[in-house]
């Protein structure tokens, strides 16, 4: 049933695959959501996105949820004194007037307990929870394992 629901979600979201979807909630704009293909479902997937806060009030990303993974969490890659570690991020600040990127080598969503392997060309929904703005869902494009950034014409990478 879980697989069926996921399959249905993937099919329903299919027309939006190439959209590089942009969604807004309040003063927040969420765009360039992408992920990488995984090798099987046994290893975690990753989630990257860009959030712009055009308002005058600080907000924060406090959690993510998705039917694609049983245990999605926010993490931050930290390289300190030449050692990389990946602590759990309780929340990611989205200050007023600023643009925050979850991108390789920094903040990222870690998608543990994948329901199924993520395949290049797929897309899946992720619901972002903000401390003040509330919840908003964005479709995430699964790119190649070797992708380095979002595959959108307007992406600044």
């Amino acid at each position, binding site marked *: 049933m879980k697989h069926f629901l996921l399959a249905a979600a993937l099919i329903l979201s299919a027309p939006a695959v190439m959209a590089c979807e942009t969604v807004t909630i309040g003063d927040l704009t969420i765009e360039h959501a992408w992920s*990488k293909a995984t*090798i*099987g479902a*046994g*290893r*975690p*997937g*990753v989630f990257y996105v860009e959030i712009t806060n055009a308002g005058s009030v600080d907000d924060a990303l406090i959690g993510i949820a998705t039917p694609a993974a049983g*245990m999605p*969490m926010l*993490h931050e*890659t930290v*390289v300190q004194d*030449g*050692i*990389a*570690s*990946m602590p*759990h991020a309780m929340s990611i600040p989205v200050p007023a007037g600023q643009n925050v990127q979850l991108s*390789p*080598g920094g903040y*990222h969503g*870690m*998608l*543990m*307990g994948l329901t199924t392997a993520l395949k290049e060309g797929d897309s899946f929904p992720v619901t972002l929870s903000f401390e003040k703005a509330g919840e908003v869902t964005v479709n995430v494009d699964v790119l190649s*394992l*070797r*992708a*380095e950034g979002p595959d959108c014409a307007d992406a600044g990478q």
Partner: protein
Amino acid sequence: MRLRRLQLGLWVAAIAAMIIFAGTKWATQGEGVAETSPAFTPVFTLADEEGRIRTSAEFRGKFLLVFFGFTNCPDVCPTTLSDVAQVMDDLGADAEKVQPLFVSIDPERDRRLGLAAYTAAFHPAILGLAGTEAETQAAANSFKIFYGRENDAAAPDGYSMAHSPGLFLIGPDGEWLRQFTYGTPAADILSDLQSRF
């Protein structure tokens, strides 16, 4: 008299040797592990994806690009291995002069999850190695790098790995040449390699 002369000569030689030894030792200590550190030859003995024992000695004649990581790592490891894959593609015919190695610092779990499928997904040239805990620690010591297990209830299997995220370049004679720090663009790694052929 001749004996005394010989004794004197030996004493001079011995003192000279001591001074040279002390001098080199002092120089070694003074420089730390910067890119200019004196030459050293890291060694390893680790099993590959098929369980065959591979040693540093068998790769003499090739440049080695060595990365220590773990396959459950969602961010740093795929980013670096993607860069390595890009370098191997861009080397063209020179690719045969370079052997990229992925050394697992989480060997037991990585063997269980499948090392070959992981490295092949990035590039067929990348060879995955996963030894025993002792062999892995010995290899890390030899490369002068750190890794450690961090208990994290929120991570898969309750732990994650902290590690030196650099990519290490070893010369055809086995000597350490340099480190590419995490995030070095593939194009920079490529041009550095090409300047050495």
